Protein backbone atom coordinates (compact mmCIF):
# COMPACT_ATOMS: atom_id res chain seq x y z
CA UNK A 1 0.00 0.00 0.00
CA UNK A 2 1.01 3.56 -0.51
CA UNK A 3 0.65 5.19 2.89
CA UNK A 4 1.20 8.81 3.87
CA UNK A 5 1.84 9.75 7.49
CA UNK A 6 1.52 13.38 8.56
CA UNK A 7 3.74 14.18 11.52
CA UNK A 8 4.36 17.22 13.72
CA UNK A 9 7.42 18.46 15.54
CA UNK A 10 6.50 19.27 19.15
CA UNK A 11 8.41 20.30 22.27
CA UNK A 12 9.25 17.68 24.88
CA UNK A 13 6.13 17.76 27.04
CA UNK A 14 8.10 17.04 30.23
CA UNK A 15 9.52 20.56 29.99
CA UNK A 16 8.48 23.26 32.44
CA UNK A 17 7.16 25.73 29.90
CA UNK A 18 7.51 29.49 30.13
CA UNK A 19 5.43 32.02 28.26
CA UNK A 20 7.42 34.18 25.86
CA UNK A 21 7.59 37.96 26.29
CA UNK A 22 4.91 38.39 23.60
CA UNK A 23 2.43 36.64 25.90
CA UNK A 24 1.02 34.62 23.02
CA UNK A 25 3.61 31.91 22.51
CA UNK A 26 5.88 29.58 24.43
CA UNK A 27 9.45 30.65 25.20
CA UNK A 28 11.48 28.31 23.03
CA UNK A 29 14.82 28.81 24.81
CA UNK A 30 16.35 25.47 25.71
CA UNK A 31 13.38 23.43 24.48
CA UNK A 32 14.03 19.94 23.10
CA UNK A 33 11.83 18.68 20.31
CA UNK A 34 10.58 15.33 19.12
CA UNK A 35 7.90 13.84 16.94
CA UNK A 36 4.46 14.06 18.59
CA UNK A 37 3.79 10.78 20.43
CA UNK A 38 0.65 9.83 18.54
CA UNK A 39 2.41 10.55 15.25
CA UNK A 40 5.01 8.00 16.30
CA UNK A 41 2.25 5.42 16.60
CA UNK A 42 1.04 6.44 13.14
CA UNK A 43 4.49 5.97 11.57
CA UNK A 44 4.82 2.58 13.27
CA UNK A 45 1.36 1.57 12.06
CA UNK A 46 2.28 2.43 8.47
CA UNK A 47 5.58 0.55 8.65
CA UNK A 48 3.96 -2.56 10.10
CA UNK A 49 1.14 -2.53 7.54
CA UNK A 50 3.63 -2.41 4.71
CA UNK A 51 5.91 -4.99 6.33
CA UNK A 52 2.95 -7.35 6.72
CA UNK A 53 1.25 -6.75 3.41
CA UNK A 54 4.32 -6.82 1.21
CA UNK A 55 5.74 -4.16 -1.06
CA UNK A 56 4.46 -0.69 -0.39
CA UNK A 57 5.65 2.81 0.24
CA UNK A 58 5.55 4.91 3.40
CA UNK A 59 5.82 8.65 2.86
CA UNK A 60 6.11 11.02 5.81
CA UNK A 61 5.00 14.63 5.54
CA UNK A 62 5.54 17.52 7.91
CA UNK A 63 4.70 21.18 7.64
CA UNK A 64 6.92 23.89 9.06
CA UNK A 65 10.37 25.49 8.93
CA UNK A 66 13.53 23.52 8.12
CA UNK A 67 13.87 22.22 11.68
CA UNK A 68 11.01 19.76 10.97
CA UNK A 69 13.47 17.86 8.78
CA UNK A 70 14.89 16.41 11.99
CA UNK A 71 11.58 14.69 12.75
CA UNK A 72 11.17 13.65 9.12
CA UNK A 73 14.61 12.02 9.25
CA UNK A 74 13.63 10.30 12.48
CA UNK A 75 10.68 8.73 10.63
CA UNK A 76 13.04 7.80 7.77
CA UNK A 77 15.42 6.21 10.27
CA UNK A 78 12.52 4.15 11.61
CA UNK A 79 12.01 2.85 8.08
CA UNK A 80 9.85 5.27 6.08
CA UNK A 81 10.83 5.41 2.41
CA UNK A 82 10.77 9.11 1.68
CA UNK A 83 9.81 12.43 3.21
CA UNK A 84 8.22 15.70 2.17
CA UNK A 85 8.63 18.99 3.99
CA UNK A 86 5.90 21.51 3.27
CA UNK A 87 7.92 24.56 4.02
CA UNK A 88 6.48 27.49 5.93
CA UNK A 89 8.07 29.95 8.36
CA UNK A 90 5.95 28.67 11.19
CA UNK A 91 3.12 26.28 11.95
CA UNK A 92 -0.19 28.18 11.94
CA UNK A 93 -2.55 27.89 14.92
CA UNK A 94 -5.47 27.40 12.53
CA UNK A 95 -5.85 23.68 11.75
CA UNK A 96 -7.75 24.45 8.55
CA UNK A 97 -4.85 26.47 7.18
CA UNK A 98 -2.61 23.41 7.71
CA UNK A 99 -5.19 20.93 6.39
CA UNK A 100 -5.48 23.01 3.20
CA UNK A 101 -1.75 22.69 2.58
CA UNK A 102 -1.74 18.96 3.38
CA UNK A 103 -4.75 18.32 1.13
CA UNK A 104 -3.01 20.09 -1.74
CA UNK A 105 0.01 17.81 -1.29
CA UNK A 106 -1.94 14.59 -0.73
CA UNK A 107 -4.61 15.08 -3.44
CA UNK A 108 -2.66 13.71 -6.36
CA UNK A 109 -0.40 11.38 -4.39
CA UNK A 110 -2.41 8.22 -5.06
CA UNK A 111 -2.36 7.18 -1.39
CA UNK A 112 -4.36 4.18 -0.21
CA UNK A 113 -4.21 5.34 3.38
CA UNK A 114 -3.35 8.61 5.10
CA UNK A 115 -2.47 8.45 8.78
CA UNK A 116 -2.35 11.12 11.47
CA UNK A 117 -1.76 10.98 15.19
CA UNK A 118 -4.97 11.38 17.19
CA UNK A 119 -3.84 14.87 18.08
CA UNK A 120 -0.62 16.82 18.38
CA UNK A 121 0.51 16.57 21.99
CA UNK A 122 1.29 20.30 22.15
CA UNK A 123 -1.78 22.02 20.65
CA UNK A 124 -4.18 19.09 21.26
CA UNK A 125 -6.70 20.32 18.68
CA UNK A 126 -7.29 16.96 16.93
CA UNK A 127 -8.61 18.88 13.93
CA UNK A 128 -6.09 18.62 11.09
CA UNK A 129 -6.76 14.96 10.26
CA UNK A 130 -10.57 15.23 9.99
CA UNK A 131 -10.32 18.58 8.17
CA UNK A 132 -7.92 17.10 5.61
CA UNK A 133 -10.37 14.21 5.10
CA UNK A 134 -13.17 16.69 4.53
CA UNK A 135 -11.14 18.68 2.00
CA UNK A 136 -10.22 15.49 0.14
CA UNK A 137 -13.71 14.06 0.49
CA UNK A 138 -12.39 10.85 2.07
CA UNK A 139 -13.84 8.67 4.83
CA UNK A 140 -12.27 9.44 8.19
CA UNK A 141 -11.95 7.38 11.36
CA UNK A 142 -10.48 9.17 14.36
CA UNK A 143 -8.73 7.97 17.52
CA UNK A 144 -8.35 4.44 16.25
CA UNK A 145 -6.84 1.84 18.58
CA UNK A 146 -6.67 -1.05 16.13
CA UNK A 147 -6.83 -1.28 12.37
CA UNK A 148 -7.31 -4.22 10.00
CA UNK A 149 -7.07 -3.87 6.25
CA UNK A 150 -8.21 -6.39 3.65
CA UNK A 151 -9.43 -6.14 0.08
CA UNK A 152 -9.53 -2.38 -0.05
CA UNK A 153 -11.59 -2.08 3.10
CA UNK A 154 -10.59 -1.17 6.62
CA UNK A 155 -12.04 -2.14 9.98
CA UNK A 156 -11.07 0.05 12.88
CA UNK A 157 -11.77 0.02 16.59
CA UNK A 158 -12.31 3.28 18.43
CA UNK A 159 -12.10 3.51 22.20
CA UNK A 160 -14.85 5.69 23.61
CA UNK A 161 -15.58 6.80 27.14
CA UNK A 162 -16.60 3.51 28.78
CA UNK A 163 -17.27 1.75 25.48
CA UNK A 164 -15.74 0.94 22.12
CA UNK A 165 -17.05 1.05 18.58
CA UNK A 166 -15.96 -0.77 15.47
CA UNK A 167 -16.24 1.07 12.17
CA UNK A 168 -15.78 -0.11 8.61
CA UNK A 169 -14.92 1.98 5.60
CA UNK A 170 -13.46 1.77 2.14
CA UNK A 171 -9.99 2.93 1.13
CA UNK A 172 -8.59 5.40 0.40
CA UNK A 173 -9.29 6.90 3.79
CA UNK A 174 -7.87 9.00 6.58
CA UNK A 175 -7.26 7.46 9.98
CA UNK A 176 -6.04 9.18 13.13
CA UNK A 177 -4.20 6.86 15.47
CA UNK A 178 -4.54 6.56 19.24
CA UNK A 179 -2.80 4.55 21.95
CA UNK A 180 -3.42 0.85 21.58
CA UNK A 181 -1.68 0.86 18.22
CA UNK A 182 1.93 -0.37 18.31
CA UNK A 183 4.42 1.98 19.92
CA UNK A 184 7.06 3.61 17.74
CA UNK A 185 10.15 1.42 17.33
CA UNK A 186 13.59 2.66 18.34
CA UNK A 187 15.31 4.10 15.28
CA UNK A 188 18.18 1.65 14.80
CA UNK A 189 21.68 3.01 14.35
CA UNK A 190 21.80 1.55 10.84
CA UNK A 191 18.43 3.15 10.21
CA UNK A 192 19.82 6.53 11.25
CA UNK A 193 22.70 6.12 8.78
CA UNK A 194 20.37 4.92 6.02
CA UNK A 195 18.02 7.88 6.56
CA UNK A 196 20.69 10.27 5.30
CA UNK A 197 20.49 8.65 1.87
CA UNK A 198 16.69 8.64 1.57
CA UNK A 199 14.90 11.35 -0.43
CA UNK A 200 13.57 14.38 1.45
CA UNK A 201 11.74 16.80 -0.83
CA UNK A 202 11.03 20.38 0.17
CA UNK A 203 8.07 22.26 -1.30
CA UNK A 204 6.42 25.51 -0.27
CA UNK A 205 3.31 24.90 1.84
CA UNK A 206 0.15 26.10 0.16
CA UNK A 207 -1.37 27.22 3.42
CA UNK A 208 -5.03 28.15 3.65
CA UNK A 209 -6.19 31.41 5.11
CA UNK A 210 -5.38 31.67 8.80
CA UNK A 211 -8.55 32.65 10.60
CA UNK A 212 -7.58 31.63 14.09
CA UNK A 213 -4.62 33.20 15.85
CA UNK A 214 -3.41 32.77 19.41
CA UNK A 215 -4.34 35.87 21.39
CA UNK A 216 -2.88 34.99 24.76
CA UNK A 217 -1.28 32.08 26.59
CA UNK A 218 -1.22 31.58 30.31
CA UNK A 219 0.09 28.93 32.66
CA UNK A 220 -2.39 27.10 34.89
CA UNK A 221 -2.79 28.78 38.29
CA UNK A 222 -0.50 27.49 41.02
CA UNK A 223 -2.17 24.81 43.06
CA UNK A 224 -2.83 25.71 46.67
CA UNK A 225 -0.80 23.75 49.20
CA UNK A 226 -2.39 20.57 50.57
CA UNK A 227 -3.67 20.29 54.12
CA UNK A 228 -2.93 17.47 56.55
CA UNK A 229 -6.03 16.77 58.60
CA UNK A 230 -4.42 14.38 61.05
CA UNK A 231 -2.55 11.11 61.17
CA UNK A 232 -3.51 7.43 61.33
CA UNK A 233 -7.01 5.92 61.52
CA UNK A 234 -8.15 8.67 63.89
CA UNK A 235 -8.01 11.17 61.02
CA UNK A 236 -10.33 9.21 58.72
CA UNK A 237 -13.69 10.57 59.97
CA UNK A 238 -12.48 14.16 59.60
CA UNK A 239 -11.06 13.40 56.11
CA UNK A 240 -14.37 11.85 55.03
CA UNK A 241 -16.29 14.83 56.42
CA UNK A 242 -14.10 17.31 54.52
CA UNK A 243 -14.32 15.30 51.29
CA UNK A 244 -18.11 15.51 51.72
CA UNK A 245 -18.61 19.04 52.80
CA UNK A 246 -15.62 20.94 51.45
CA UNK A 247 -14.25 19.11 48.41
CA UNK A 248 -17.70 17.70 47.59
CA UNK A 249 -16.19 14.66 45.85
CA UNK A 250 -18.03 12.01 47.89
Amino acid at each position, binding site marked *: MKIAVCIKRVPDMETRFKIAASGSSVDETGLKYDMSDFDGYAVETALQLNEKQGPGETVVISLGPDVVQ*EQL*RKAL*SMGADRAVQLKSDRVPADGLAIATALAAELKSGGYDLILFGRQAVDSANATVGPMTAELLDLPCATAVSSLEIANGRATARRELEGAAEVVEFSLPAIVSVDEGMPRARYP*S*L*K*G*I*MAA*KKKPLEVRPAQLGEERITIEKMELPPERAAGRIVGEGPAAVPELVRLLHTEAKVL
Partner: protein
Amino acid sequence: MQDFFDIDSALSEEERAVRASVRQFVDERILPIIGDCYVEGRFPNEIIPGLAELGVFGANLPEEYGCAGLNNVSYGLIMQELERGDSGIRSFASVQGALVMYPIFAFGSEEQKKHYLPKMAAGEIIGCFGLTEPDYGSNPSGMITMANEQADGSWVLNGAKMWITNGSQAKVAIVWAKTNGDKSDKSIRGFVVPTDTPGFTAKDQKGKLSLRASDTSELVFQDVHLPKDAILPKSGGIKSPLMCLTQARYGISWGVIGAAMACYEEALTYATSRVMFDKAIGGFQLQQQRLAVMLTEIVKAQLVSLHLGRLKDSGKLTPQQVSLAKRNNCDIATDVAREARRLLGANGILAEYASMRHMANLESVYTYEGTHDIHTLILGQAVTGLSAFN
Protein backbone atom coordinates in the same frame (compact mmCIF):
# COMPACT_ATOMS: atom_id res chain seq x y z
CA MET B 1 20.55 15.98 32.49
CA GLN B 2 20.29 19.59 31.54
CA ASP B 3 22.71 20.55 28.78
CA PHE B 4 24.15 23.37 30.86
CA PHE B 5 27.00 24.18 28.49
CA ASP B 6 25.01 23.76 25.25
CA ILE B 7 27.34 20.95 24.18
CA ASP B 8 24.53 19.67 21.97
CA SER B 9 25.24 22.53 19.61
CA ALA B 10 28.59 20.85 18.89
CA LEU B 11 26.88 17.58 17.92
CA SER B 12 25.39 16.80 14.52
CA GLU B 13 21.74 15.89 14.11
CA GLU B 14 22.83 12.30 13.41
CA GLU B 15 24.88 12.15 16.60
CA ARG B 16 21.95 13.47 18.62
CA ALA B 17 19.61 10.97 16.95
CA VAL B 18 21.92 8.08 17.86
CA ARG B 19 22.06 9.26 21.46
CA ALA B 20 18.27 9.71 21.60
CA SER B 21 17.63 6.18 20.40
CA VAL B 22 20.04 4.54 22.83
CA ARG B 23 18.87 6.82 25.65
CA GLN B 24 15.27 5.75 25.14
CA PHE B 25 16.30 2.09 25.08
CA VAL B 26 18.23 2.48 28.33
CA ASP B 27 15.37 4.37 30.01
CA GLU B 28 12.76 1.82 29.01
CA ARG B 29 14.58 -1.48 28.97
CA ILE B 30 17.57 -1.23 31.30
CA LEU B 31 16.82 1.21 34.12
CA PRO B 32 13.70 -0.66 35.29
CA ILE B 33 15.64 -3.92 35.84
CA ILE B 34 19.23 -3.01 36.50
CA GLY B 35 19.00 -2.46 40.28
CA ASP B 36 17.65 -5.98 40.76
CA CYS B 37 20.22 -7.48 38.36
CA TYR B 38 22.96 -5.82 40.39
CA VAL B 39 21.67 -7.17 43.69
CA GLU B 40 21.17 -10.64 42.17
CA GLY B 41 24.62 -10.49 40.60
CA ARG B 42 23.52 -11.31 37.07
CA PHE B 43 24.06 -9.79 33.65
CA PRO B 44 20.65 -9.21 31.97
CA ASN B 45 21.03 -11.49 28.94
CA GLU B 46 17.48 -10.65 27.95
CA ILE B 47 18.59 -7.26 26.64
CA ILE B 48 21.17 -8.63 24.18
CA PRO B 49 18.74 -9.06 21.25
CA GLY B 50 17.41 -5.53 21.78
CA LEU B 51 20.90 -4.04 21.89
CA ALA B 52 21.79 -5.95 18.72
CA GLU B 53 18.66 -4.80 16.92
CA LEU B 54 19.48 -1.25 17.90
CA GLY B 55 22.94 -1.83 16.43
CA VAL B 56 25.25 -0.94 19.33
CA PHE B 57 27.76 -3.78 18.88
CA GLY B 58 30.74 -2.58 16.89
CA ALA B 59 28.67 0.43 15.81
CA ASN B 60 31.74 2.28 14.50
CA LEU B 61 32.80 -0.58 12.21
CA PRO B 62 31.81 -0.59 8.52
CA GLU B 63 28.41 -1.47 7.14
CA GLU B 64 29.87 -4.14 4.82
CA TYR B 65 30.37 -6.32 7.90
CA GLY B 66 26.86 -5.80 9.21
CA CYS B 67 27.76 -2.89 11.48
CA ALA B 68 26.26 0.60 11.60
CA GLY B 69 29.31 2.49 10.28
CA LEU B 70 28.91 5.37 12.74
CA ASN B 71 31.57 7.94 13.49
CA ASN B 72 33.47 7.77 16.75
CA VAL B 73 31.57 10.59 18.45
CA SER B 74 28.32 8.69 17.91
CA TYR B 75 30.01 5.56 19.21
CA GLY B 76 31.12 7.47 22.31
CA LEU B 77 27.60 8.76 22.90
CA ILE B 78 26.34 5.15 22.77
CA MET B 79 28.85 4.21 25.47
CA GLN B 80 27.78 7.22 27.55
CA GLU B 81 24.12 6.24 27.39
CA LEU B 82 24.77 2.55 28.14
CA GLU B 83 26.83 3.39 31.19
CA ARG B 84 24.13 5.82 32.34
CA GLY B 85 22.34 2.51 32.79
CA ASP B 86 25.21 0.56 34.32
CA SER B 87 28.96 0.10 33.83
CA GLY B 88 28.33 -3.64 33.40
CA ILE B 89 26.15 -3.05 30.34
CA ARG B 90 28.68 -0.67 28.82
CA SER B 91 31.49 -3.13 29.62
CA PHE B 92 29.60 -5.85 27.77
CA ALA B 93 29.27 -3.64 24.70
CA SER B 94 32.87 -2.40 24.96
CA VAL B 95 34.24 -5.93 25.04
CA GLN B 96 32.04 -7.12 22.21
CA GLY B 97 32.80 -4.11 19.98
CA ALA B 98 36.19 -2.70 20.88
CA LEU B 99 37.98 -5.81 22.18
CA VAL B 100 36.62 -8.62 20.01
CA MET B 101 35.09 -7.18 16.86
CA TYR B 102 37.79 -4.52 16.51
CA PRO B 103 40.79 -6.93 16.59
CA ILE B 104 39.04 -9.24 14.13
CA PHE B 105 38.43 -6.21 11.93
CA ALA B 106 41.94 -4.79 12.33
CA PHE B 107 44.08 -7.95 12.42
CA GLY B 108 41.81 -10.66 11.00
CA SER B 109 41.70 -12.33 7.61
CA GLU B 110 38.84 -11.53 5.25
CA GLU B 111 37.36 -14.96 6.07
CA GLN B 112 37.49 -14.25 9.80
CA LYS B 113 35.87 -10.85 9.31
CA LYS B 114 33.08 -12.21 7.12
CA HIS B 115 32.45 -15.12 9.45
CA TYR B 116 32.45 -13.30 12.78
CA LEU B 117 31.62 -9.63 12.41
CA PRO B 118 28.01 -9.82 11.10
CA LYS B 119 27.09 -12.48 13.67
CA MET B 120 28.70 -10.50 16.46
CA ALA B 121 26.92 -7.29 15.38
CA ALA B 122 23.68 -9.31 15.48
CA GLY B 123 24.46 -10.52 19.01
CA GLU B 124 24.43 -14.15 17.83
CA ILE B 125 28.04 -14.66 18.87
CA ILE B 126 29.24 -13.11 22.11
CA GLY B 127 32.96 -12.62 22.53
CA CYS B 128 35.52 -12.06 25.25
CA PHE B 129 39.08 -10.76 25.27
CA GLY B 130 41.88 -12.54 27.08
CA LEU B 131 44.95 -10.44 27.75
CA THR B 132 45.29 -9.99 31.53
CA GLU B 133 46.76 -12.90 33.50
CA PRO B 134 46.70 -13.62 37.24
CA ASP B 135 50.24 -12.31 37.66
CA TYR B 136 50.35 -9.90 34.73
CA GLY B 137 47.81 -7.07 34.96
CA SER B 138 49.46 -3.69 34.44
CA ASN B 139 52.37 -5.44 32.77
CA PRO B 140 50.81 -7.54 30.00
CA SER B 141 54.16 -7.88 28.23
CA GLY B 142 55.16 -10.33 30.95
CA MET B 143 52.39 -12.78 30.05
CA ILE B 144 53.22 -16.49 30.20
CA THR B 145 50.39 -17.90 28.06
CA MET B 146 52.11 -19.62 25.14
CA ALA B 147 50.99 -20.90 21.74
CA ASN B 148 53.30 -23.29 19.94
CA GLU B 149 53.07 -23.98 16.24
CA GLN B 150 52.92 -27.63 15.26
CA ALA B 151 54.51 -29.27 12.25
CA ASP B 152 51.23 -29.09 10.32
CA GLY B 153 50.82 -25.36 11.01
CA SER B 154 48.19 -25.80 13.73
CA TRP B 155 48.68 -24.38 17.24
CA VAL B 156 48.64 -25.65 20.80
CA LEU B 157 47.73 -23.11 23.46
CA ASN B 158 48.51 -23.27 27.19
CA GLY B 159 48.02 -20.73 29.95
CA ALA B 160 45.43 -18.80 31.93
CA LYS B 161 43.69 -15.42 31.83
CA MET B 162 41.86 -13.53 34.56
CA TRP B 163 39.32 -10.71 34.94
CA ILE B 164 37.71 -11.59 31.63
CA THR B 165 34.41 -9.79 31.05
CA ASN B 166 31.78 -11.99 29.32
CA GLY B 167 34.18 -14.93 29.75
CA SER B 168 31.70 -17.59 30.78
CA GLN B 169 29.03 -16.78 28.22
CA ALA B 170 31.31 -16.06 25.26
CA LYS B 171 31.23 -18.33 22.23
CA VAL B 172 34.53 -16.97 21.04
CA ALA B 173 37.59 -15.63 22.84
CA ILE B 174 40.33 -13.43 21.45
CA VAL B 175 43.34 -14.81 23.30
CA TRP B 176 46.72 -13.09 23.30
CA ALA B 177 49.68 -15.40 23.72
CA LYS B 178 53.40 -15.50 23.20
CA THR B 179 54.45 -17.87 20.45
CA ASN B 180 56.88 -20.70 19.88
CA GLY B 181 58.68 -20.48 23.20
CA ASP B 182 59.80 -16.87 22.61
CA LYS B 183 59.42 -14.94 25.89
CA SER B 184 59.76 -11.44 24.44
CA ASP B 185 56.64 -9.36 23.93
CA LYS B 186 57.39 -9.18 20.23
CA SER B 187 56.19 -12.78 19.88
CA ILE B 188 52.68 -11.95 21.11
CA ARG B 189 49.94 -12.85 18.62
CA GLY B 190 46.18 -12.90 18.77
CA PHE B 191 44.12 -16.11 18.38
CA VAL B 192 40.43 -16.57 17.68
CA VAL B 193 39.43 -19.37 20.01
CA PRO B 194 35.95 -20.93 19.96
CA THR B 195 35.13 -21.51 23.63
CA ASP B 196 33.89 -25.06 22.99
CA THR B 197 37.37 -26.15 21.92
CA PRO B 198 38.54 -29.05 24.15
CA GLY B 199 40.89 -27.85 26.87
CA PHE B 200 39.24 -24.41 27.12
CA THR B 201 37.50 -23.75 30.44
CA ALA B 202 35.90 -20.61 31.85
CA LYS B 203 34.96 -20.15 35.47
CA ASP B 204 32.97 -17.27 36.99
CA GLN B 205 34.87 -15.13 39.47
CA LYS B 206 32.69 -14.94 42.55
CA GLY B 207 32.43 -12.42 45.35
CA LYS B 208 32.58 -9.19 43.37
CA LEU B 209 31.38 -6.08 45.18
CA SER B 210 31.54 -4.08 41.94
CA LEU B 211 30.27 -4.67 38.38
CA ARG B 212 27.81 -7.16 39.79
CA ALA B 213 25.61 -6.97 36.68
CA SER B 214 28.47 -8.26 34.55
CA ASP B 215 30.11 -11.66 34.11
CA THR B 216 33.78 -11.79 35.02
CA SER B 217 35.66 -15.03 34.50
CA GLU B 218 38.90 -16.84 34.67
CA LEU B 219 39.96 -18.70 31.50
CA VAL B 220 42.21 -21.74 31.48
CA PHE B 221 43.79 -23.26 28.35
CA GLN B 222 45.16 -26.73 28.70
CA ASP B 223 46.61 -28.10 25.45
CA VAL B 224 43.99 -26.27 23.40
CA HIS B 225 44.49 -27.38 19.79
CA LEU B 226 43.72 -24.66 17.29
CA PRO B 227 43.66 -24.83 13.50
CA LYS B 228 46.17 -22.92 11.44
CA ASP B 229 43.64 -20.21 10.60
CA ALA B 230 42.87 -19.45 14.28
CA ILE B 231 45.66 -16.88 14.36
CA LEU B 232 44.88 -13.22 13.64
CA PRO B 233 47.27 -12.90 10.68
CA LYS B 234 47.95 -9.19 11.00
CA SER B 235 48.57 -9.20 14.77
CA GLY B 236 52.15 -8.86 15.92
CA GLY B 237 53.69 -7.92 19.25
CA ILE B 238 52.24 -6.28 22.37
CA LYS B 239 51.28 -3.31 20.20
CA SER B 240 48.31 -5.22 18.78
CA PRO B 241 46.42 -5.80 22.03
CA LEU B 242 47.37 -2.29 23.14
CA MET B 243 45.65 -0.94 20.02
CA CYS B 244 42.50 -2.75 21.13
CA LEU B 245 42.83 -1.21 24.58
CA THR B 246 43.08 2.24 23.03
CA GLN B 247 39.71 1.60 21.33
CA ALA B 248 38.13 0.39 24.55
CA ARG B 249 39.63 3.15 26.68
CA TYR B 250 38.26 5.69 24.25
CA GLY B 251 34.77 4.27 24.83
CA ILE B 252 35.34 4.15 28.59
CA SER B 253 36.22 7.84 28.66
CA TRP B 254 32.71 8.48 27.31
CA GLY B 255 30.99 5.76 29.27
CA VAL B 256 31.91 6.97 32.73
CA ILE B 257 30.40 10.36 31.89
CA GLY B 258 27.08 8.54 31.58
CA ALA B 259 27.47 7.04 35.06
CA ALA B 260 28.37 10.47 36.43
CA MET B 261 25.36 12.03 34.68
CA ALA B 262 23.04 9.46 36.25
CA CYS B 263 24.44 10.21 39.72
CA TYR B 264 24.26 13.97 39.22
CA GLU B 265 20.67 13.79 38.04
CA GLU B 266 19.70 11.60 40.95
CA ALA B 267 21.44 13.92 43.40
CA LEU B 268 19.82 17.01 41.89
CA THR B 269 16.33 15.50 42.00
CA TYR B 270 16.89 14.39 45.58
CA ALA B 271 18.31 17.75 46.64
CA THR B 272 15.31 19.64 45.33
CA SER B 273 12.71 17.30 46.83
CA ARG B 274 14.15 16.08 50.13
CA VAL B 275 13.11 18.42 52.95
CA MET B 276 15.14 18.77 56.13
CA PHE B 277 15.00 21.64 58.64
CA ASP B 278 11.85 22.77 56.76
CA LYS B 279 13.52 23.34 53.41
CA ALA B 280 14.76 21.36 50.43
CA ILE B 281 18.32 20.29 51.17
CA GLY B 282 19.36 21.75 47.80
CA GLY B 283 18.94 25.12 49.49
CA PHE B 284 21.88 24.45 51.80
CA GLN B 285 25.27 25.68 50.69
CA LEU B 286 27.02 22.37 51.35
CA GLN B 287 24.78 20.52 48.89
CA GLN B 288 24.96 23.32 46.34
CA GLN B 289 28.74 23.07 46.51
CA ARG B 290 28.47 19.34 45.81
CA LEU B 291 26.15 19.87 42.86
CA ALA B 292 28.18 22.73 41.40
CA VAL B 293 31.38 20.69 41.49
CA MET B 294 29.67 17.63 39.98
CA LEU B 295 28.18 19.68 37.16
CA THR B 296 31.49 21.40 36.42
CA GLU B 297 33.47 18.17 36.31
CA ILE B 298 30.88 16.47 34.09
CA VAL B 299 30.90 19.36 31.62
CA LYS B 300 34.72 19.31 31.49
CA ALA B 301 34.75 15.55 30.94
CA GLN B 302 32.16 15.85 28.16
CA LEU B 303 34.30 18.43 26.38
CA VAL B 304 37.42 16.28 26.74
CA SER B 305 35.70 13.21 25.27
CA LEU B 306 33.97 15.14 22.52
CA HIS B 307 37.26 16.67 21.37
CA LEU B 308 38.94 13.28 21.67
CA GLY B 309 36.21 11.85 19.42
CA ARG B 310 36.76 14.58 16.84
CA LEU B 311 40.49 13.80 16.92
CA LYS B 312 39.72 10.10 16.44
CA ASP B 313 37.38 10.82 13.56
CA SER B 314 40.03 12.92 11.86
CA GLY B 315 42.67 10.21 12.39
CA LYS B 316 44.85 12.37 14.66
CA LEU B 317 44.27 10.57 17.95
CA THR B 318 47.23 9.38 20.02
CA PRO B 319 47.04 6.67 22.72
CA GLN B 320 48.44 9.19 25.22
CA GLN B 321 45.49 11.51 24.58
CA VAL B 322 43.19 8.57 25.27
CA SER B 323 45.09 7.96 28.52
CA LEU B 324 44.48 11.56 29.57
CA ALA B 325 40.74 11.25 28.92
CA LYS B 326 40.35 7.81 30.49
CA ARG B 327 42.31 8.88 33.55
CA ASN B 328 40.52 12.16 34.07
CA ASN B 329 37.00 10.99 33.33
CA CYS B 330 37.14 7.85 35.47
CA ASP B 331 38.58 9.93 38.28
CA ILE B 332 35.88 12.59 38.22
CA ALA B 333 33.13 10.00 37.73
CA THR B 334 34.17 8.11 40.87
CA ASP B 335 34.18 11.43 42.76
CA VAL B 336 30.79 12.47 41.36
CA ALA B 337 29.25 9.11 42.27
CA ARG B 338 30.60 9.23 45.80
CA GLU B 339 29.42 12.80 46.38
CA ALA B 340 25.98 11.92 44.99
CA ARG B 341 25.78 8.96 47.33
CA ARG B 342 26.64 11.19 50.26
CA LEU B 343 24.11 13.84 49.25
CA LEU B 344 21.43 11.13 49.31
CA GLY B 345 22.12 10.47 52.99
CA ALA B 346 20.97 7.10 54.27
CA ASN B 347 18.84 6.53 51.17
CA GLY B 348 22.05 6.62 49.17
CA ILE B 349 23.06 3.17 50.33
CA LEU B 350 19.94 1.52 48.86
CA ALA B 351 19.85 -0.34 45.54
CA GLU B 352 16.64 1.57 44.84
CA TYR B 353 18.89 4.54 44.07
CA ALA B 354 21.63 4.30 41.46
CA SER B 355 24.47 6.30 42.97
CA MET B 356 26.06 3.66 45.20
CA ARG B 357 25.79 1.06 42.42
CA HIS B 358 27.61 3.43 40.07
CA MET B 359 30.08 4.34 42.82
CA ALA B 360 31.00 0.69 43.33
CA ASN B 361 31.09 -0.02 39.58
CA LEU B 362 33.35 2.91 38.88
CA GLU B 363 36.01 1.56 41.22
CA SER B 364 36.43 -1.26 38.68
CA VAL B 365 36.38 1.09 35.72
CA TYR B 366 38.98 3.27 37.47
CA THR B 367 41.12 0.14 37.76
CA TYR B 368 40.60 -1.76 34.50
CA GLU B 369 41.88 -0.94 31.03
CA GLY B 370 44.95 0.64 32.49
CA THR B 371 44.68 1.69 36.10
CA HIS B 372 44.55 5.35 37.01
CA ASP B 373 48.16 5.07 38.14
CA ILE B 374 49.35 3.47 34.91
CA HIS B 375 47.71 6.22 32.85
CA THR B 376 49.44 8.75 35.11
CA LEU B 377 52.77 7.15 34.23
CA ILE B 378 51.90 7.06 30.53
CA LEU B 379 51.27 10.80 30.67
CA GLY B 380 54.41 11.30 32.73
CA GLN B 381 56.44 9.49 30.13
CA ALA B 382 54.76 11.41 27.31
CA VAL B 383 55.69 14.79 28.72
CA THR B 384 59.12 14.04 30.18
CA GLY B 385 60.35 11.49 27.71
CA LEU B 386 61.40 9.40 30.72
CA SER B 387 59.82 6.03 31.40
CA ALA B 388 58.84 5.23 34.97
CA PHE B 389 58.05 1.61 34.04
CA ASN B 390 61.60 0.29 33.78
